[in-house]
């Protein structure tokens, strides 16, 4: 036992002797605080409530969830650690924090308890709180947190119709669904909106002998289905996409006049390749082409960044 331990126990016994009875002295305050909490809690539950979003859709890989607000900072931290280092931010750092907390009483064993007498630990905690607040604030104010979250209402409606009409009986998206018809996310990127519209109106007219049924869809329904189909091909992308391309790809690829010629010119890649093909190619070229000399970017760029660049490229149809 350290020298001060015995002394502490004696002094504590003295303080206790001269102290107050837990009930009602402390219990009174406890009850007030809990009651106030209950009031705020009920008000939030009643006026704000808990929302229930759309049914989970495992095929919709573009859905980007926002974390609970108290985890928002972790999202921001992840952005600071690109590629392989993400594991450091996501796993190693939190584990270190927990280990630090757990062993704190073994690290800080001195007698001093007042925060001003433990400036280092007090400082660490204050810095952590400030950093947490700052990152949370950044997370909510920076527009690029979730570039792909914005969803076109037409696309959402089309997606719902796709489910209602049970298209997945014949088609698959993201590897889920039937095999009678083509895998839509792989092929529709190649079709124009006009072609898709006509095809929905009368599949036989464009693909004689097809088993795809004529569904007698309304004009509106065709519009939203086409929007959904096109969203599989590509989708909204951010300004960051072009920047990422310039930073990573222009040594080998050309878009318009800019860039190198080690790899193919990508100015019109969107008219020959679907987004999912492009995405998979960026992630790992050897999947589609085992004599590829292009580096794989999975781990180098984050999944969101790859999705972003792939959508950008899929939108390039060579008309610029």
């Amino acid at each position, binding site marked *: 036992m350290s020298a001060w331990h015995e002394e502490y126990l004696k002094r504590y016994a003295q303080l*206790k002797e*001269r102290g*107050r009875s*837990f009930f009602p002295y402390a219990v009174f305050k406890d009850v007030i605080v*809990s009651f106030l909490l209950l009031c705020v809690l009920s008000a939030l*539950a009643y006026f704000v409530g808990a929302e229930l979003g759309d049914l989970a859709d495992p095929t919709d890989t573009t859905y980007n969830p926002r974390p*609970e607000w108290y985890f928002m900072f972790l999202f921001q931290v992840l952005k600071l650690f690109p590629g392989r280092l993400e594991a450091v931010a996501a*796993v190693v750092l939190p584990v270190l924090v927990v280990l630090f907390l757990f062993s704190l*009483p073994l690290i800080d064993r001195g007698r001093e*308890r007042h925060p001003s007498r433990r400036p280092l630990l007090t400082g660490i905690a204050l810095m952590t709180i400030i950093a947490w607040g700052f990152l949370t604030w950044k997370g909510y104010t920076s527009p690029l947190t979730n570039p792909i979250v914005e969803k076109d209402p037409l696309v959402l409606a089309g997606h719902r119709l796709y489910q209602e009409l049970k298209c997945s009986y014949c088609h698959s998206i993201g590897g889920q669904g039937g095999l009678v018809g083509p895998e839509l996310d792989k092929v529709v990127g190649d079709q124009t909106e006009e072609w898709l519209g006509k095809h929905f109106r009368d599949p036989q007219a464009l693909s004689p002998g097809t088993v795809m049924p004529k569904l007698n869809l309304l004009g509106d329904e065709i519009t939203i289905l086409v929007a959904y189909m096109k969203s599989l091909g590509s989708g909204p992308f951010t300004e960051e996409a072009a920047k990422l391309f310039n930073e990573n790809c222009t040594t080998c690829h050309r878009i318009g006049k800019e860039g190198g010629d080690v790899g193919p010119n990508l100015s019109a890649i969107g008219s020959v390749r679907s987004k999912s093909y492009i995405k998979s190619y960026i992630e790992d070229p050897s999947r589609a082409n085992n004599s590829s000399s292009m580096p794989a970017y999975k781990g180098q760029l984050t999944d969101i960044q790859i999705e972003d660049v792939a959508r950008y490229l899929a939108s390039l149809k060579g008309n610029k």
Partner: protein
Amino acid sequence: MRNNRRLLGWLDERTGLKKIWETLFARKIPESKGSVAWFYTLGSACLFVFVVQVITGVLLAMNYVPSPDHAYDSVRFIDKQVFLGHFLRGLHKWGATFMVVVVLLHMLRVYFMGAYKYPREVTWMMGVVILLLVMAFSFTGYLLPWDQKAYWATAVGANIAGQTPVVGSHVAKILKGGEEMGVATLTRFYALHVLVLPILTALLVGIHLFLVVWHGISEPPEKTNRQIESN
């Protein structure tokens, strides 16, 4: 009046009620002056929110079905059909947020006051484990409504766990109950959320509170260490 006293006496003789009351409630604690005393209410606030979560959770479980085919509809049913169901969901959902916030605040008060020091080290360590359990509650509960947000937030979480060096892919697989998220994931999370975690938490909170009473609550720290006063 006399009958009451006789009843109490009868009970006390058989249960030790008076002794229990004296140890738990009529015990003496060091006096804390002014507003500092209010910081000491955060621990009991944790307990209060936890009890709210248990009660609302049990009520939710009466209508919830833990299968991917029915989970969403059952939550919708609670939301739209069950009497006060929407309010109930709101309570449990906001209670979860409160739980995290209040437990963190309680931890901060203990941290800043250096109340984790001798002889209360183990009280603190139990606390850290409880904190992890609270996080686990939050993570497993998030999936249960089986809506888009639930599904994809969990997918992201599992992916993050999957990045752990060396053991990552195994951790992710154990979490998901297989390669893909689906039936196994949901039933697994449900079992954790309503059976394993509550039992563990109740146990650890029990130990935590026992230790708090055993050592007595710490006195507010002072800038200078006073010596023992001779009386």
